[in-house]
């Protein structure tokens, strides 16, 4: 019947007001922390994979390639399912939150690895040689000379990855993490007002991402001020 009453949509304002805080709360205590923690671990994985990709040892390069290829070639939803529902079959029980952190970190690790690799490669070869000529080894040159310069290049794409990650955390709802979207789903179970509640969830994601993109703009403006043309 309701299909035929277009034009008579009314907004249930009391429900909207009541549900706003629980949904937002899910965002503040799960979505954002989940994204931040996964991003940190993800960057660590990505750095390792980027360095393996750049290694002179063929086997190491291949390990990284295979990892990156699998992560990028399979849906995040499936990765989450394997970790949360699949690992218990091997006797490894994972809590929803840990499962989400593991899957999201590994996912970020696969995508950000290529960003980091490209940013390292963007630093002119002469910078490595300058490090070597003042007596530094590979590790020291990487840390003190190359990465600070690569960081400037990789910050814009990495902040995009972070914003994507914030949205991707909604998939954790499928493994019962009561993050933003799951909160909205739970309320629909009793109120059935899908349009209202999911729009509310969308609005909150959008606010989060909007704020993040403002912060991103600030960071990039600051970086631009320091960017030096080297050659």
């Amino acid at each position, binding site marked *: 019947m309701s299909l035929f009453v277009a034009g008579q949509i009314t907004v249930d304002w009391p429900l909207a007001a009541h549900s706003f805080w629980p949904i937002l709360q899910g965002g503040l205590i799960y979505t954002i922390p989940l994204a931040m923690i996964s991003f940190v671990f993800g960057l660590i994985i990505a750095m390792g994979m980027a360095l393996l990709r750049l290694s002179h040892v063929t086997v190491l390069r291949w390990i990284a390639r295979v990892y990156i290829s699998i992560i990028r070639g399979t849906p995040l939803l499936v990765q989450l399912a394997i970790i949360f529902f699949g690992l218990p079959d091997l006797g490894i029980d994972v809590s929803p939150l840990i499962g989400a952190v593991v899957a999201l970190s590994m996912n970020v690790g696969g995508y950000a690895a290529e960003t980091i690799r490209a940013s390292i490669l963007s630093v002119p070869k*002469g910078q490595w040689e300058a490090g070597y*000529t*003042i007596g*530094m*080894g590979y590790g*020291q040159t990487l840390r003190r000379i190359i990465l600070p310069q690569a960081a400037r290049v990789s910050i814009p794409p990495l902040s995009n990855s972070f914003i994507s990650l914030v949205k991707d955390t909604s998939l954790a709802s499928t493994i019962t993490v009561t993050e933003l979207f799951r909160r909205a789903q739970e309320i629909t179970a009793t109120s059935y007002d899908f349009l209202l509640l999911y729009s509310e969830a969308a609005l909150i994601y959008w606010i989060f991402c909007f704020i993040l993109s403002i912060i991103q703009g600030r960071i990039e403006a600051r970086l631009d001020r320091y960017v030096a043309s*080297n050659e």
Partner: protein
Amino acid sequence: MLLNVKNLQKSFGGRRILNGIDFTLDEGKVLVLIGPSGSGKTTTLRSLNLLERPEQGVLQIDGDEVDFSKPVSKKTIRAIRRKSAMVFQNYNLFPHKTVLENVIEGPVMVQKTAKEKAVDNARKILERVGLSDFLDSYPHQLSGGQQQRVGIARAVALKPRLLLFDEPTSALDPELVGDVLKVMKDLALEGWTMVVVTHELKFAEEVADKVLFLDQGTILEQGTPDELFGHPKHERTRQFLSRIMNKV
């Protein structure tokens, strides 16, 4: 004898670039490498700092030795590399560090000199190359000539036994070349041992103790500047010299 190079051979992608390079250099002397483009000057120089690894040959600097035909340990690489420091054609300064930070990076991070001492020393060196007013500037705020003088200061601050210069003035506007050559001349007078790749014949004439003419990966001729510039033995040397003198 501070530097002894024996039979360096190096190929790139199957093409022989260095065809058995031999020379020696005594402490406090200046060696200038000249030769046509592609003759292997840069490759030779970079081999001395192990930025390039020849397949054959022996390199001795100040009591340390590498035999390139054998596997070389990381320790040996470090030991040999620290005997020399390179000044690059396009400076290769660290763009994210100030002038002062560029110069103290090696002494503090590699040689573990106390920071105050390193800063003190860096200030002195930067004063000598005329950059006292730019300690806190970033490289991109400097002219090419100033950047190259920072490059020289960075190398000198390491107190290597050997300074290597690869066409240090060829990326510079003509009016900036003089300041850099002046700094290099001063270093030579102070007794630094130097190997310089350059097309500045006047500089070579005034400063070099020995000049090598490289052609197609071999040393075709060597001698004092007088011998080589005044009485070149080979036709190719004569041709090369007249070509760059006409350019000036």
